């Protein structure tokens, strides 16, 4: 198997599994218990908090464990919007970008539906958010701005430090949330220096277990919780803690952070080889997303014109190669990716986009094999295709109804 869908989810490292298993069997106590068999388990949670806090330049008390990136995003966005709006009802404006993950976009749509005023920032053809537009849009009634650290589909890294320092320079307080699910332990970050108030991360994207994530909540920032119950996570996120999950997440964080530079170097070299060879050996392709340093180390996203992404994906699957057509979350939908449309790709090219996302486990041999297999598959599908470079696309543009 050649697994190139690491932006969707990753394989757990053996060291992480080994660390987790005892917390299923012998060490199964409830961390809320006052006896040692429970409070020892609680200590593991506090150590995990410490490890993750250090990686992002936070204080351990500023880390709240959640059930994943989606919950972290929801808690941050709904939590700060409700909290601030409750205190000052004039404050009702919130800002994000057009290329966020559905767990941000749909949360904004929810807030919009209950009366908040929302602006969605444009991005340029590389997918870089328009900071000048942001500066124009922020008002005294703006509660917060949410911008992802890097896009999950096209891998473009956003200028969050610039946005953070702009927001920090304002006279009125505008909070800053960053969805760092795709960059955590890949792009270094210091939440203090970047003036971030809320930062979302997820375990299963960094070779940790699924179903666990965290939210950094800057000291002094208070959120309306999504859920109510026991006193866990300072009542911001009640419920018996997913102990083995939290431990697995911190272990995976530790391993990934230690080798960050080495892993990035490895992935960047394979990423560049993949992009360069495809551009050289296959005609009519477009790289989606930024180039070089502004691109995530493990992301390659290419539109193969005149070919539909799902077909390409399934032909690759027959060769035991696993890639993605869009964000894994929306892969059951038929609409083309909102991210590719936002960077200005015509629909017919947006449909032909394939995302290859590497991990530290990806090898040169795997990339070479992919590069052997890919051109004949693209050729076969193009030979079969009813459109090509001579097709007059304008004749289709009128209808937008599905037949």
């Amino acid at each position, binding site marked *: 198997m050649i697994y190139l869908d690491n932006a969707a989810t990753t394989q757990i490292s053996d060291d992480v599994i080994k660390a987790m298993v005892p917390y299923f069997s012998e060490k199964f106590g409830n961390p809320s218990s006052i006896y040692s068999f429970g409070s020892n388990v609680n200590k593991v949670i506090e150590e995990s908090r410490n490890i993750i806090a250090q990686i992002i330049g936070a204080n351990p008390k500023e880390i709240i464990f959640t059930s994943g990136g989606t919950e972290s995003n929801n808690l941050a966005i709904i939590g700060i919007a409700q909290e601030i709006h409750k205190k000052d009802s004039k404050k009702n404006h919130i800002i994000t970008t057009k290329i966020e993950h559905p767990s941000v976009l749909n949360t904004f749509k929810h807030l919009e539906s209950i009366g908040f005023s929302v602006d969605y920032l444009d991005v340029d053809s590389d997918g870089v958010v328009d900071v000048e537009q942001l500066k124009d849009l922020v008002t005294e009634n703006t509660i917060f701005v949410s911008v992802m650290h890097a896009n999950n589909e096209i891998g473009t890294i956003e200028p969050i430090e610039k946005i953070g320092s702009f927001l920090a320079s304002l006279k009125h307080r505008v909070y800053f949330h960053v969805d760092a699910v795709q960059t955590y332990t890949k792009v270094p970050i210091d939440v203090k220096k970047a003036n971030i108030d809320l930062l979302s991360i997820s375990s299963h994207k960094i070779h940790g277990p699924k179903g666990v994530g965290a939210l950094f909540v800057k000291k002094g920032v208070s959120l309306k919780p999504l859920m109510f119950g026991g006193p866990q996570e300072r009542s911001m996120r009640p419920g018996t803690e997913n102990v083995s999950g939290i431990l697995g997440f911190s272990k995976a964080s530790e391993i990934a952070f230690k080798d960050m530079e080495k892993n990035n170097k490895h992935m960047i070299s394979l990423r560049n080889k993949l992009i360069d060879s495809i551009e050289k050996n296959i005609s009519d392709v477009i790289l989606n997303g930024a180039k070089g340093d502004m691109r995530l180390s493990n992301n390659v996203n290419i539109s193969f014109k005149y070919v*539909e992404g799902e077909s390409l994906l399934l032909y690759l699957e027959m060769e035991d190669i696993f890639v993605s057509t869009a964000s894994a979350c929306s892969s059951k939908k038929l609409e083309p990716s909102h991210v590719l449309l936002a960077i200005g790709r015509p629909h017919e090219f947006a449909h032909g986009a394939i995302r290859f996302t590497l991990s530290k486990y990806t090898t040169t041999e795997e990339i070479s094999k992919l590069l052997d297999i890919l051109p004949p598959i693209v050729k076969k599908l193009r030979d079969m295709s009813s459109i090509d470079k001579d097709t007059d696309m304008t004749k289709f543009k009128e209808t937008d109804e599905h037949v």
Partner: protein
Amino acid sequence: MNMYSEKVMDHFKNPRNVGELKDADGVGTVGNPICGDVMTIYIKVKDNIISDVKFKTFGCAAAIATSSIMTEIAKGKTLEEAEKITKADVASNLDGLPPQKMHCSNLSSDALHLAIENYRKTKEKK
């Protein structure tokens, strides 16, 4: 296993009757690249019978497989029989399609019907 039946995967992997018919008697194109599917069906007609049929499709696995099975179903049928082929026929010949892909079977029957219409109109004009 992905979401498709073995039959769909077989037709997707080894599509039958791919290509154009240079001297086609009728051609039908449906769909829209904006939606991600465009199908063209070419037919040759001899004595009111579809004697040859080919397709070209830009689209997902379901679009390709429905095009392929449609060519098999249509070949050798009279025009009247071919006009009666429904999307349900297409889907059931493929041992079913996932719900969100059912519109593809629509597309291929529409393309065939358009090709027949095109043949009739051309003949009238002659």
